[in-house]
Each structure stands twice: as C-alpha cells, then as structure tokens.
C-alpha cells in the first residue's frame, strides 16, 4: 500500500472515533460535526507530514483538540465582546438524543460541560477514548503528571455531580 492509501484508509477507519471524540469535547452535535470537518480538512492538508508507522490516531486527535481550543478561544473573545462572559463556550443544544436516554444525556453532558476545558479533555481522552496516560499526555502536549492531576480533579467532580460517589 502506498503511504497515501494507508493514510486515507486509516483516517476513514478513524472517523467514527473522531466523531465520538468531537462530541466529548463539544457536547454538541452540530459543533462536533463542524469540528470533525475542520479536523479532517487539516489532517488531509498536512498528510505529507504524517510519518508512516507512527500512530495516526494520536496525530489526528491532537489536530482535533488543537482545533477545538482555537475555536473556544475565538468564541470566548467574541462573547467577551458581545455577550455575557462564558455564554459562548458552554452553551449548546444537545444533539438529537434517543428519547429514552434524554435524562441521562442531560446529566452526563451537563456534568462534562461544567468541567474546565483542561480537565474535560483529559477525562474524555482517557475515560471515553481509552488512551493510556502517556498517549493522552502526548496528545495534549503536557507532562504525564499534569495529565493525571487534571484527570483526577475532573473525575472527582464527575463522581460528585453524577452521584457515583461510593
């Protein structure tokens, strides 16, 4: 297989996971779709920079996460200019949920949305996307100790919020 074929095949296979990651980051179906689109665009543009044999998933996840950070910053700037602080960041309509899980959906997404961005991304990468600490730290470009402490605070808050406290 040529590098391109391998890249494109792998990227296609990653799409379902990327969509899940996007939803975890954004808690919003429309935002997640936009984010996916932008991420795939960026990844394709940069495809010659990917080294075959390295993990494509971590590479693309990093693109997605950085893209989302940019978006959050842009929104924060806009909201500081035009609206009350903080509204632009976490406001979102939950995507079309199955009726039976509506309540649950509200809870989980609300709890995640309340986390600071840095805790949320750690939680999402490790607990939803299943990355090892080391991999998640690399994607976020932070030391592993920083990752585990953000992760710890994040899950502490979630346990409290979602009533899973033992």
């Amino acid at each position: 297989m040529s590098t391109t074929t391998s890249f494109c095949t792998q990227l296609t296979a990653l799409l379902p996971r990327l969509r899940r990651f996007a939803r975890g980051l954004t808690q919003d179906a429309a935002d997640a779709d936009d984010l996916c689109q932008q991420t795939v665009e960026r990844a394709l543009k940069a495809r010659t920079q990917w080294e075959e044999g390295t993990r494509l998933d971590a590479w693309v996840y990093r693109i997605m996460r950085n893209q989302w950070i940019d978006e959050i910053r842009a929104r924060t700037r806009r909201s500081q200019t035009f609206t009350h602080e903080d509204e632009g960041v976490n406001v979102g309509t939950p995507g079309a949920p199955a009726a039976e899980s509506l309540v649950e959906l509200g809870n989980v997404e609300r709890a995640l949305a309340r986390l600071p961005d840095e805790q949320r991304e750690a939680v999402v990468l490790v607990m939803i996307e299943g990355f090892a600490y080391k991999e998640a730290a690399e994607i976020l470009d932070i030391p592993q100790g920083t990752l585990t402490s953000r992760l710890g605070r994040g899950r502490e808050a979630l346990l409290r919020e979602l009533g899973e406290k033992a």
Partner: protein
Amino acid sequence: MTGVTREELRAYADGELSGEAADRIEEAVAHDPELAAQLQAEQRLRARLQAHFDPVAEEAVPDALMAMIAAAQEEDAAKAPAKEPHTPGAVAVPPVAQPSAQPPAPVLDFAAAKARREKERKEKAKARARAGAQRVPGQKGVPLFARPGLAAGLAASLVLGVMLGTSLNLGRFASPSHDAVGDSASVVDRGGQLVAAGNLARGLDTQLASAQGNGGPLRILTSFERDNGTYCRVYSARATAGIACRDGDSWVLERTQANQPSAASPDAYRQAGSAEADLMRAAQDMANGAPLDADGERTARKKGWK
C-alpha cells in the same frame, strides 16, 4: 485502608497498572470493601461515560467526510499513477459497511467482524442506556448453554471480572496497531483457513475454561464437542475473540471477532462482552450437547483434544 492511594486505584481502573502493581491492587480490593466500592464507583463512572458517547461512534459517518478523504486519495493517486492500489473501493467503503466485497485478508475480516459487532452493540446500547451501566451481557437473557451450572459460573466470572478487573489484558495498554500485530502473529493463514499459532495455539492447547487464572492474555470461555466429534473452544484474547476447532494438530479459527482495540480494561470488558455473547450463541448452535465440564475438559486435554 490498605495503603492503596486514590491515584493508584484510578490508575488501576484506567488499565495503567500491570503485573505486580495490578496484583497488589486486586489483592487490596479483595480484602477491603471500601476500596472495592471506590473501584466500582470509578468503573461505573467510566461505563456511564462510555455508554453515553459510544453510540456516537456507531452512527453513520457523514458522506461529506468520506468524500473529502476519497478526493484526497484520488488526487494523490493521480499524481503517482503507477503506484496504486490493490484494494479497490476500500476507502470509499464506510467502516460499518457490509464487508462481503472485500478480499479475505485477516485484517479485513477483523474489520468485518467489528462491523457486525458494532451493529449488535448499537442495539445493546439502547438497552444499556435504559438499564444503566455495568451490565454484563452474559446475564441478560442471552441464552447461554442450557446447563445452568456453567451458565451461572460463567456469568459469575464475568461479574467478578468486572468487579476486579481480572480481564485487564483484554484491553490493557492496547494500541490498535500493536494489537493487530500481536494477535495476527498468533494467527496464520493456511490454505485460506486461519489457524492459531504461537501463544494462541498454546493457550488453546493448555488452558481450561474451568480453571482460569487471572489476567492471562487469553481466556477460554468454554469448550464443546461438535457434531463431527471434534473439539472446539471459545476464546477471548486481547484484540480478538473467536471459536477455534480442532483439525488434526491445529486449531482452525472458525469465527473471529474484534474486541474493542483501544479502550482500557473495564469497558474493554464490557464491550468485548457483546462479542462474547455472540460467540457463545454461535457455539451453542455448533455444539453437540452440553459444553464440557471441568473433568471433560481435562480428559480432552490429556488426549490432545482429539
């Protein structure tokens, strides 16, 4: 408390610990109800998050995304026309599409199995969302073998696995690429049949479903005899699960399914659970009578599964 810190417990729940470090936590959890409750809370949280977000990964991927990638590939192919390809249409086919047109390379078979599995998971996700997290598929109305003792024993060991994370190796540190290599190294293609090799073959030869150690990379779920008198075994390894049947000195893989490659332990278990329930159903169809009990397994092993 048993000298296990919150961080260690979480690292364990996240599948970060292995070997002695993991054993130590398991030991402590087994003797400390409070610690066990904390671990369960961590696992429930994780299961709940995943139950919530996994369905997104099972939705159909928008055509626009696939088209973008396909266009890029064509563009590259046009630049280097000599180089291309022997997997026609591979990119245009969504990962969840029907796999029938694909060539029978093992990797693609795994993808196909995964597509099948994901379809089933979609249905289960709904039930799960309704019933709350931490459900063991083996328990809920899936007709396991008719023998109540074994079914109960299996269900109990599944529960125990969820509780204590004994299934760690299903997903621990799993990186998709490494997993694929690791497992396919244990599988060889022999005249179009997939045959167990290496650790997988050894495990199928020697491990007993009735005497399962904690946390080996391979678990035997059950063993049974087929109509033609040959023995078959349902197994679950890190990246794949399947049914292997004896053919001479080999184990032919009659079915293989992908286990979720990238999740860490507790839920890798949960997700693998549905693949396993599938396999148990298939085994039930294949089996001639009840599965082997402990003695039956031991006897069969003594005879080299012949």
